[in-house]
């Protein structure tokens, strides 16, 4: 049975309400979290894709 990478960490957005309803301060904190998370999320995506059968060759070099 195919198995995905066990070390994939699903995204956990630090908001408890829609961003449009958050305060300016909460939105700014969310945005900063998001920008900081980009390299990690790309790394997580790469792990997940390359651990999927038939997609091991992604990302292209």
């Amino acid at each position, binding site marked *: *049975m*195919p*198995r*995905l*990478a*066990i070390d*994939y*960490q*699903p*995204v*956990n*957005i630090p*908001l*408890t*309400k*829609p*961003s*449009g*309803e*958050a305060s300016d301060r909460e*939105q*700014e904190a*969310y*945005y900063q979290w*998001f*920008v900081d998370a*980009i390299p990690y*999320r*790309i*790394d*997580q*995506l*790469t*792990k*997940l*894709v*390359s651990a*999927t*059968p*038939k*997609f*091991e*060759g*992604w*990302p*292209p*070099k």
Partner: protein
Amino acid sequence: MRGGPPNREPDSLRVLGAWLYAIVKTPDLLTIDHELQEKLDILTYQIPYREFPLVPVLVNSAAFDTGIYLAEVFRHNCANVDWWLCKSVSEGRLSIDYGEPVLTNFGRAHHLNPIGVVRTAVTLSLLTDMVYDGPLRLSPSRLYELFGHWRKYVPIEDWR
């Protein structure tokens, strides 16, 4: 990381889009180790608010990550495209993307919410096999098509 860092070239979206379609449409590919399942269960329990409650947590996360990668392809290839906290207000109404990280400098379209467009395609695909067969639904080529659609808004002088 098996294949090294992604090259962030547009063609890399073709395989990534096929992968996203595969994990949405082929439940067997989502057969996962119990360790990851425990993480997903905890996450589902802990988050009182989820933007797309009908989408499985792992698929939602994969769509989120795919949207980020779509954005990074634009940033890598377009000089002035960058992240921005959307504060758009038009004619007194907040943008649908208000408060979300979006990409700016998309010409007359103003900005792109890359995560939003990917999530929309995934959500429609999950919801609408029964009721919707329109152009927004997910397909193996949909991610690359989204890139092709949105690239038209980037001023040509901004392309590297």
